[in-house]
């Protein structure tokens, strides 16, 4: 699955688009940054409700391809422009974490 397959999902708003051709490895759900730090997969999609500057730092250091903010969580402009600089995609959705993770998973199967 490529990042562009996720960017087109109608449930998500694209806040930073990253590199659409990037190949996605896995989907990962976690809200504790301490755990995400150790477990988030390289080139993964990370679904979380934790939206702050440190979320981006963790994504950057773990080589996460795409952050999906569930439950309508947002990120401030500064952090978003940093994400764009680093080529990390950021999406926001009103859906709960499980629902959107499942939809992304299903989009990758088709």
């Amino acid at each position, binding site marked *: 699955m490529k990042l562009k397959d996720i960017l087109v999902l109608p449930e998500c708003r694209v806040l930073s688009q990253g590199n659409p051709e990037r190949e996605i490895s896995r989907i990962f759900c976690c809200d504790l940054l301490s755990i995400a730090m150790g477990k988030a997969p390289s080139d993964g999609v990370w679904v979380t409700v934790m939206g702050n500057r440190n979320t981006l*730092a963790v994504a950057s250091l773990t080589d996460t391809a795409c952050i999906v903010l569930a439950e309508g969580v947002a990120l401030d402009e500064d952090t978003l422009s940093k994400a764009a600089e680093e080529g990390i995609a950021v999406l926001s959705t009103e859906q709960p974490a499980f629902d959107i993770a499942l939809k992304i998973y299903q989009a990758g199967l088709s």
Partner: protein
Amino acid sequence: MSEQLTFTYTIDGNDFTRAGEASSSVKNKLKMLGVGSDAIRKVAIAMYEGEINMVIHADGGVITVSVSDNDITMVLADKGPGIPDISKAMQEGYSTAREEVRSLGFGAGMGLPNMKRFTDEMHIDTELGKGTTITMKVHL
């Protein structure tokens, strides 16, 4: 690389949002030096956890990273309160972080265990009331 390269960073103890900038900078430098991505990931994760710990517990400190042909060494030195019980601090889930830190998604008691897990060697030198120096190595 025949010569040893050293980078030094001063960590600001008051700014939680900037924690991670030093690790990020090291990550980019190692990438430019052609270090393998597995080693870079290990260094970045271990150093970020250390950086966060310095901000949470020790009001900042100094991190020195040296790169040689065989390994990458990180030395994290702070003048914080010291660690009263290292074996407790090394247990996953044991944390003394403040509530405000927890609300940001940290303080789950994973910092030191992650640092150990992602490095090949780790040594903690701590003295109560004086500070802590942690030395970590990732082999290349």
